[in-house]
């Protein structure tokens, strides 16, 4: 009986152990390294009649408090760093309302995989009800010296899969 209890307790502690392994520290300000980056695909706009890549590459500021990671993108026009995205790296699926439209629910799962941080989002494309399902996956990795951040993003839909990597230098 005791051994069963120990097993159960051990299993319950596994997620905490996984968190404890999250050694990477992404906190800080990250300056876009455009030369080493690929253009980001804008998932709201698709077609060749208009550019379907996100213009420019905003800098990032990351705050990391344990497994809570807040990501601020440099706003292009107004105040800097004013729209944070907050991720909880607990490996659990969190339901959030689409920030783009407020009209659909997204499921966000953030987890550590050794030194990499993985953020997976499942949502209706464009945040509108009735659309195809978009699976997005971001993998964050630090260089060995901790001064370079690469984020590889993959968008998967029934139509196709799109992938690109953006690179940032620590300020």
């Amino acid at each position: 009986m005791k051994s069963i209890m120990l097993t159960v307790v051990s299993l319950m502690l596994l997620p905490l152990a996984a968190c404890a392994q999250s050694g990477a520290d992404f906190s800080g300000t990250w300056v876009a390294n455009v030369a080493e980056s690929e253009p980001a695909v804008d998932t709201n706009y698709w077609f060749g009649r208009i550019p379907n890549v996100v213009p420019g590459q905003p800098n990032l500021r990351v705050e990391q408090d344990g497994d809570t990671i807040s990501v601020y993108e440099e706003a292009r026009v107004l105040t800097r760093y004013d729209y944070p995205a907050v991720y909880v790296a607990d490996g659990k699926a969190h339901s959030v309302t689409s920030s783009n439209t407020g009209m659909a629910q997204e499921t966000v799962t953030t987890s550590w995989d050794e030194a990499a941080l993985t953020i997976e989002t499942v949502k209706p494309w464009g945040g509108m009800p009735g659309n195809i399902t978009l699976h997005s996956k971001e993998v964050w990795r630090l260089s060995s010296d901790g001064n370079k951040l690469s984020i590889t993003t993959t968008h998967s839909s029934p139509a196709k899969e799109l992938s690109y990597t953006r690179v940032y230098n620590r300020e």
Partner: protein
Amino acid sequence: MTSNKISRRNAFKGALAAGAAGLAAAALPKAYAQQGAADAAALPRQVGLPNVWGEDFLFQWSPPENVARDLSVGDAVIRLSSSNERFGRLMNVEGTDYASQFSAWRTAGWSACEASSNQWLSRKMPASEVAEVKAQLRANDIVFYGLHCGGNIIGPGAVAEQSQRHVIDAINAVAEMEGKLVLTHAGGLHPNRNVAHPQNWSRDAWMKSVNALKRICRDTAGIDVKIPIEAVNSESVNNPWAQKRLIEDVGDPRVGVGLDLTNFVFPGFAFRTTELLNLTFDMLGEHITYVHAKDLVWNEMMAGLNWALQGTGLIDYETFLARVSRLQRPEIYMLIEFLVEDEQYVQAQRNVRSIANQLGVKIYGTQA
């Protein structure tokens, strides 16, 4: 919160008293009010989606919270067709290997096809070739359902007469091919009907469209070919109310609707497509002869509505496909169109099939 349900009764009730916002307009011309009461009572008088936050508020372009979405599925099976001239649109070209062509289309998931009237009528196809086309369509289980006439039946000068004659010729050609329909448009007063003319929404322009269609119907009386009208934003028929009224004013049972929801959309509808779809299907119902599958986004400072890949834009594709499947007939033809590259037709079909599959809507055949 106000009711989210849009029924035909709700859409029409209250007539002039109810519509203050959006397109709405409320701007019905005086002439309408001066019509005979019996005539007016039978026709749609209010246009625009119902208000969301009461009549004393501004443009109500945002959708209500928690719009009711009935995604129940019907029995109609969708046959997909493509407007890609290199793969999926039937072309009248001498020497075509129809057996190989149709086999490739079916493998790619296209089980129906149409042709452009201009191209189709540009060559008189020999009777032996007509027979060959029909035989290969049957052998590959593909339906040729009709022609699309992009002319301008109320255009200035000789354009109107030429276009009307062209539609009449197209109807005869479709009958020869044992097709089902000829799609055309209400037209506009500018020579190019895709360019909006300021008087397109006048009573005079409306009557020109009605009379042109009456003439086409009269000159093709007895031919069992439907004449669905496709809305276009630059023309008077650019909303479901106008579609309904045109059917009533022309008064020929062959005139119906070639439903293209993106051609109804102005900014006030852009984020309310679930409601617009439900209202449209409630109002037009079985008048919908066949459907176009497109999508759109609003991505510019001006009212810049642009086409998007099917299933990625503002059209509620789940509601769209569910409502199509609930039409009361065994098969519906759905044209996937207005894409830029060949590969995008493949991607669009994948999206449409994926959404349909999740809902349980039946799409004929499979996509390789």
